[in-house]
C-alpha cells in the first residue's frame, strides 16, 4: 500500500443491534490515512421505482422521489435522506447518516455512504445482460430482489428473508404482458 495515497477501505454497516458500535470500533482501529466507503445493509434502506419521464431536472427527479416515498410511507418519510438515479430511488433515515459521519475523523475520511444495492450493482454491471436480469441480494434476514429490464429499473422488492423463486414467480404473474428477463444474478 502506498504511503502517499490514502488507502481505500470499504466497511459494511450490518443489520442488528450493536452494528453501529461495531462500525465505530472498525473506524477507530484505522491507523493509516484512508478513504472509507460505508455500505449500508438493506435493512436500513427503502427502495422505490420512480418513473422519471415527468422530471426535467435532477432536482425535479429528487422531488418526485420524495413525493413517492411520502405517498407510500407517510409523514415519517419527510425525515429521510433520498437519492435517485436512473429511476431508482432510495432512502435512509437522516438520523442514521448523522450517527455515521462523526465516527470518521483523523486519518479515516468518510468519502461514501452507499446502499448495498448500489455497491453490488456497480461491482457486477459488466456481467449484466443487455436484455436485463433478476438481481438477487441475500442477507441474513433480508432479501432484496430487483428486476432490471432492457430500458432500466422496472421493479424492486426489499423485505424480510424470503424464497427468491416464489418472489420471482409472484412478480411474473403481476407483470403479465411485459417481457421478463431470463437471467437471475446473485450479487
Amino acid at each position, binding site marked *: 500500500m502506498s504511503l502517499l495515497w490514502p488507502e481505500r477501505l470499504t466497511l459494511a454497516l450490518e443489520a442488528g443491534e450493536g452494528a453501529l458500535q461495531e462500525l465505530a470500533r472498525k473506524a477507530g482501529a484505522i491507523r493509516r490515512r484512508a478513504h472509507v466507503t460505508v455500505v449500508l445493509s438493506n435493512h436500513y434502506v427503502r427502495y422505490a421505482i420512480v418513473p422519471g419521464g415527468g422530471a426535467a431536472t435532477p432536482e425535479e427527479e429528487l422531488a418526485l422521489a420524495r413525493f413517492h416515498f411520502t405517498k407510500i410511507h407517510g409523514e415519517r418519510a419527510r425525515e429521510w435522506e433520498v437519492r*435517485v438515479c436512473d429511476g*431508482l430511488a432510495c432512502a435512509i433515515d437522516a438520523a442514521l447518516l448523522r450517527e455515521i459521519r462523526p465516527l470518521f475523523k483523523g486519518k479515516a475520511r468518510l468519502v*461514501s455512504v452507499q446502499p448495498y444495492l448500489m455497491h453490488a*450493482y456497480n461491482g457486477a*454491471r459488466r456481467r449484466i445482460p443487455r436484455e436485463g436480469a433478476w438481481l438477487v441480494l441475500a442477507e441474513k434476514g433480508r432479501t432484496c430482489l430487483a428486476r432490471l429490464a432492457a430500458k432500466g429499473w422496472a421493479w424492486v422488492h426489499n423485505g424480510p428473508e424470503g424464497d427468491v423463486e416464489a418472489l420471482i414467480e409472484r412478480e411474473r404473474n403481476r407483470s403479465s404482458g411485459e417481457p421478463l428477463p431470463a437471467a437471475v444474478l446473485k450479487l
Partner: protein
Amino acid sequence: MRSALQLDFVAPRRRGRAPGIAVLAVSLGLAGAILFKYDETQKRLRELDAVQALLAAPRAAPRAHAEAEMKSAQAAVRQLALPWAQLIDSLERAAMKEVALLNIQPDAQNRVLRVTAEARRQEQMLDYLRRLSATGAFAEVHLVNHQVREDDPARPVQFALQASFRGGAK
C-alpha cells in the same frame, strides 16, 4: 455496458460527461488559438529584430568615428600634460658644445623622449648620454643606434637615444 448507479449519501452526485467534454473542447480550442497567436507574435518579433538590425547598422560608423576623435583628444591632452619645462631644463643642462641636437620627439603615450643628435666624436656621444642620465630627469637613457657619417669630411657620429621620463603615472 450499463452506467454506474449513483445513490451515494456522502459523495456529490457526478455530473454528466457532456459539460466536461465541452469545457475540454473549448480549452483545447483556446490553447490552439493562443499557440497560433504566439507563433505569429514570434515571427513578427523576428521581423522587427531584422528591421532594427538593418536600421542600426549605419549608425555604427559615426560611432566609430566619434571614438577615434575621442582617442585623438585624449592623446592631445596627454601631450599637453607633459612636464615640458622640466624636459627642456634637463636637455639644456646636459647640452655640450660638441653635440648638436637634430630632433627631439616626445612620446606622451609611452612617456619616453626620443632624441636624434650629432657628435664630433664617439666619446662625446657617450659623454652626452652620461650627462643626460646625470640630470636625474630620466629613469633610463640608452642608445638606440649610432653611425659615422662618411659623407661629411669631419666624419661626425649621428646617433639616436631614448630616455624614459621619471615620475608620474604612465
